[in-house]
């Protein structure tokens, strides 16, 4: 049996097909599970796609975390198995307490939809091991609530435990200036991981940068990384 990747569909998910296609391109046996399902069908990894689950009611990701499948995703995560949350998926992981902090309304209120440059800060994770430390990766963002926020104590833990997987930077890798950080996130954080590196969340869309037809495959590494995890076991 190959590497099995479950892509969770919530009502309002809209990047589910992109994520499925990217995971397949990376070599995974990817398949959809519905938010009402209670079985991940022996998934090796769970992928939470972007979109507007439950219409972003109350707060982005706040309702999705109570869906039946999320109880299974938590069990899967508690076993130390890989979970990737992209955009709305990242918001769901923060709301579910699987990653620290929260994602607030973008600093300039605008819905940010454009390519950004992200510097990979940690490669010891289930989804970034295909990259080099410091590698610059260009991926699109498309979100209104992407400003990562955490209190001082949590930020100390994030820095102390090396939980930042990527930061927004300029195209030359210099610290982000002006709109290069598209949402005003604290410390230019684009994505985070759990201490073990099994759970990863990020606002940019590697799934939209994983197809040669789109002229950019630099995000494919997030999906090929998860296969290396099992190969290395």
């Amino acid at each position: 049996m190959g590497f099995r990747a479950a892509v969770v569909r919530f009502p309002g998910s809209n990047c589910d097909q992109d994520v499925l296609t990217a995971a397949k391109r990376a070599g995974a046996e990817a398949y959809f599970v519905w938010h009402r399902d209670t079985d991940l069908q022996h998934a090796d990894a769970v992928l939470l796609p972007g979109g507007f689950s439950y219409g972003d009611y109350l707060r982005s990701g706040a309702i999705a975390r109570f869906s039946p499948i999320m109880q299974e995703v938590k069990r899967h995560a508690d076993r130390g198995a890989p979970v990737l949350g992209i955009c709305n998926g990242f918001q769901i992981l923060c709301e579910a307490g699987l990653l620290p902090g929260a994602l607030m309304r973008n600093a300039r209120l605008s819905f940010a939809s454009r390519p950004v440059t992200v510097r990979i800060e940690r490669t010891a994770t289930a989804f970034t091991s295909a990259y080099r430390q410091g590698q610059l990766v260009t991926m699109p963002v498309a979100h209104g609530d992407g400003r990562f926020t955490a209190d001082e104590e949590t930020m100390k833990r994030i820095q102390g435990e090396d939980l930042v997987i990527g930061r927004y930077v300029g195209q030359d890798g210099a610290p982000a200036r002006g709109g290069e950080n598209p949402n005003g996130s604290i410390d230019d954080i684009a994505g985070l991981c759990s201490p073990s590196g099994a759970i990863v969340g990020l606002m940019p869309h590697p799934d939209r940068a994983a197809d040669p037809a789109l002229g950019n495959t630099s995000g494919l590494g997030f999906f090929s990384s998860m296969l290396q995890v099992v190969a290395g076991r």
Partner: protein
Amino acid sequence: MTYRVLVRVMPRVGLLDPQGQAIESALHVLGFAEASGVHMGKSITLDVQAKSRDEAEARVRTMCDKLLANPVTEDYLIEVEEA
């Protein structure tokens, strides 16, 4: 007893509130120079069955901690009245 509960959820003081800022600057454009400290949150009303006002408030507090407010970014106020 049925209690009518109003929950006011507000962005935590000190965190950047771009919506509040945008509303404030719009008020200034309209000539309301006296307006400052604008913040925008949300209000949630609900009816709660409880034996006492204190019990109703305690239950709603738990609802806030578990769902209605984000503990990282928001604070809340609860007002309880007999329905």
